[in-house]
């Protein structure tokens, strides 16, 4: 298998390099045959990489310990289903995975690219394949997962226990796919620029692939948070770790992009800005992969250390500087088709939204580089961690939530003050009422009040829009309310999909506000039979059982949760100790309800049979995890292809609204 893998890797590398050179040469020499064969090389590279992937999977399943990577990331005791996780447990496999995903996405993007983009497609192909060439070259030369050991060990080192969690089946692959996925809209933008296209030919493909990488990144971030919450054992889900930040920033960049691309799609404006944005997002994605795979910063994600750092850094520099040079070269072509009618318009709101998103990304980047700057200029070691980001990004995020409530209610082009006031009035009343009621109930934390007020504000706005649209359909067509509502959504999927995603963001906000301000935490050592009261709950520790299991020792504690003297549940939080890693993986017991989570995790098992517990009552965090599926549904709705409509033979007023379908995010 090692030979097959290595050979496929090199063939794919050759195909990618050929396709890069071939498409550019074919385009410049106007040779359709060469262009076409370069495109076929993209598909071929995808297939060959699938063979390489398959080889590595077979190697894992057959526990082929002659292969260094397999020996380092699996052992005989590992269940076969963990092959999926072991595949990307180290740099080598991750790079192979990234390369394969890029090749497959590229194949689909090239195959499905719109007819009107045909002229610029060879350049896009070249950009895609150049990126693929880089990743495959690094994999084949410096981090080949098929490298062999000089001897065959009897058993492997085993898989990192922190990875054997359900969330790990999706969090890393989703994030990596999302990061590399940004290459696709970036390549479409670059292809358009290189070909000298002045128009919006790349916009549809850019939007679709932007949304795909956006949802992959969002899912990856949420799943990672969920994993941290259930397994890292400190009761939180996000702590502004440098690698979290590195994945968060590209997500911010893409979020800005999928909003502002709508302005170009709908209005032919912001042409330069969208190119700049996707360049920024691509740069941040490269940075994300550098942090993740270069492994230069201490973090919980430093699974494998490597010397790939400087190569990634060089590629990142090239990947940022060259596109900007191209952009400057083509700058004169990128005139907006239209001008801004008014500062009170959705276009303007989108620009402010972009600014806020980039500001959060900037703060995050600043926090990441500040320790380095301080070391260089002041010769002083400084840490920038969670308190900094919470304090600086917190208000910015609240402002963003506010804008999320305003932006979609402002029409394109321009809005009259009177009509905006009329539309915004009910949401504002809703928000203020929430603040008033909560304050009257004795809640006096300003940020939390603002957070809940804004959540109501946004939700009211969205629900009213839905209600108005549904009612108007119901009245005009006599559909019942359910049909009318579904038809309303289906009639303008990008817009209503966007609303659904916004609702999920409100849910995330609830979770963050709830846990940041109202969580109760208690660390306590309990002997068997002892109990403790936290908030309204009483916890009785019955005892702990120690079970040796192959590569680990499991400590299972039994705890009864009482509320008002009634037994709610008996839970069994676990702590697994892995001697070979000198590492413990905890498995918190979580009793989750929409109101609050009861969270119990054993943090140490003492020799006398007593156990140190961390107990948390986390209000509203349930909403955070429910937001994930909602976000996914929203994105699928927004992405669902619209029917291509035949021109209307009857000149009628409806003609006006049918030129472009209302497609609003």
């Amino acid at each position: 298998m090692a030979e097959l893998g290595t050979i496929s890797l090199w063939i794919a590398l050759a195909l990618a390099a050929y396709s890069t050179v071939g498409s550019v040469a074919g385009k410049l020499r106007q040779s359709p045959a060469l262009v076409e064969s370069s495109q076929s090389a993209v598909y071929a590279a995808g297939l060959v990489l699938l063979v390489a992937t398959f080889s590595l999977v077979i190697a894992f399943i057959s526990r082929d310990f002659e292969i260094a990577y397999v020996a380092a990331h699996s052992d005989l005791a590992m269940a076969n289903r963990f092959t999926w996780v072991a595949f990307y447990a180290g740099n080598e496999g991750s790079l192979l995975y990234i390369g394969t995903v890029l090749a497959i996405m590229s194949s689909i993007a090239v195959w499905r690219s719109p007819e009107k983009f045909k002229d610029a497609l060879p350049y896009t192909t070249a950009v895609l394949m150049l990126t693929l060439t880089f990743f495959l070259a690094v994999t084949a030369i410096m981090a080949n997962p098929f490298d062999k050991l000089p001897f065959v060990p009897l058993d492997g080192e085993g898989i990192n226990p922190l990875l054997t969690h359900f969330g790990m089946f999706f969090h890393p692959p989703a994030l990596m796919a999302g990061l590399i996925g940004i290459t696709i809209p970036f390549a479409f933008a670059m292809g358009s620029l290189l070909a000298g296209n002045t128009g919006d030919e790349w916009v549809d493909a850019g939007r679709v692939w932007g949304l795909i990488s956006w949802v992959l990144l969002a899912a990856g971030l949420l799943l990672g948070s969920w994993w941290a919450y259930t397994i890292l054992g400190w009761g939180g889900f996000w702590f502004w770790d440098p690698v979290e930040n590195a994945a968060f920033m590209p997500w911010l960049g893409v979020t800005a992009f999928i909003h502002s691309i709508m302005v170009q799609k709908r209005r032919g404006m912001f042409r330069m800005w969208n190119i700049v944005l996707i360049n920024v997002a691509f740069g941040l994605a490269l940075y994300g992969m550098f942090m993740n795979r270069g492994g230069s910063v201490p973090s919980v994600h430093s699974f494998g250390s490597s010397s790939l750092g400087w190569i990634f850094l060089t590629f990142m520099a090239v990947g940022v500087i060259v596109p900007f040079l191209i952009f400057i070269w083509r700058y004169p072509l990128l005139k907006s088709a239209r001008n801004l009618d008014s500062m009170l318009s959705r276009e303007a709101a989108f620009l402010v939204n972009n600014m806020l998103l980039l500001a959060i990304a900037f703060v995050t980047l600043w926090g990441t580089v500040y320790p380095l700057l301080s070391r260089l200029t002041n010769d002083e070691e400084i840490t920038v961690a969670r308190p900094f980001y919470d304090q600086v990004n917190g208000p910015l995020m609240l402002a963003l939530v506010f804008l999320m409530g305003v932006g979609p209610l402002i029409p394109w082009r321009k809005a009259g003050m009177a009509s905006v006031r009329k539309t915004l009035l009910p949401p504002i009343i809703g928000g203020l009422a929430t603040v008033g009621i909560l304050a009257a109930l004795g809640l006096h934390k300003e940020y939390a009040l603002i957070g809940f007020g804004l959540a109501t504000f946004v939700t009211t706005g969205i629900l009213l829009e839905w209600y108005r649209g549904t009612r108007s359909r119901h009245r005009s067509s006599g559909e019942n309310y359910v049909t009318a509502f579904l038809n309303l959504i289906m009639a303008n999927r990008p817009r209503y999909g966007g609303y659904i995603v916004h609702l999920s963001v409100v849910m995330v906000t609830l979770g963050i506000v709830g846990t940041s301000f109202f969580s109760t935490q208690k660390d306590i050592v309990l002997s068997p039979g002892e109990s403790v009261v936290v908030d309204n709950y009483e916890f009785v520790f019955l005892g702990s059982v120690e079970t040796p299991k192959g590569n680990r020792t499991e400590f299972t504690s039994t705890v009864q949760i009482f509320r008002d003297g009634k037994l709610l549940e008996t839970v069994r939080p676990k702590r697994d100790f892995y001697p070979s890693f000198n590492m413990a993986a905890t498995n918190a017991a979580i009793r989750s309800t929409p109101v609050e989570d009861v969270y119990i995790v054993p943090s140490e098992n003492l020799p006398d049979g007593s156990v140190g517990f961390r107990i948390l009552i986390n209000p509203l965090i349930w909403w955070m995890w429910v937001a994930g599926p909602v976000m996914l549904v929203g994105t699928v709705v927004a992405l669902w292809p619209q029917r291509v409509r035949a021109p209307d033979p009857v000149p009628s007023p409806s003609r006006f609204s049918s030129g472009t379908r209302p497609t609003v995010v």
Partner: protein
Amino acid sequence: MRRSTLIPYTHIAARSIPRAILLLLVVFALFSALTIAQNDTLHAQTPEPNLPEGSFSESQAQGIDRMIMCPVCPAETIDQAQVEISFQMRQIVRDMLSKGSDRDEILDFFVERYGKDILAAPPKSGANLVAWLMPVGGVIAGLIAVYLILRSMARRGSAPITAQPVTDAGLIPYLQLVDRHLDLNRNAAQLGSKSNPTSSSVYPPGDALGDSPNTEESKHNSEQGEQGR
């Protein structure tokens, strides 16, 4: 000609908005200043005032835990880290609190022993104030940039680049109707009455109409269009 009807409109809107954006800017600057000024972390809850001397609340101690990095683990605070030294440091925090030390004294104690990088955030003093002021400066610069960009985009608006002649003869009567409505509407808008369903229809047909999301009627129109197909 059609363009000319909308110019006054544009100007009305453009003039009233800078104030809104300036307001936003001020709000933001205040917000950011607040951020910098707050001495607690977001998570540290204010200590209960009526506690007797020498006692402290657990949440107060946890707030301090979250300000101190664990010296041996990667990027974790002593609140998060599950290693022996962080258990000990948490105990020190509680011991000092019960002896009457306040938050700053405790943080200073750890800074003396481990250096400034034991703090989870840069101190808000001296050269490190830069760390806190830079984001505020960045946000304000961003807002100003957005304002300037929007203004320049709006100014260019007087050049009728995109006004294309109406090519579809079937549209002409409708556009005329719309123009009449617009006049009615402008009067209506000044009286502060209901929003105007067809206001967007003045524009040349190159632009999609029926976009305006907040008027029921326009949505209604576009939906009827759908069913017509």
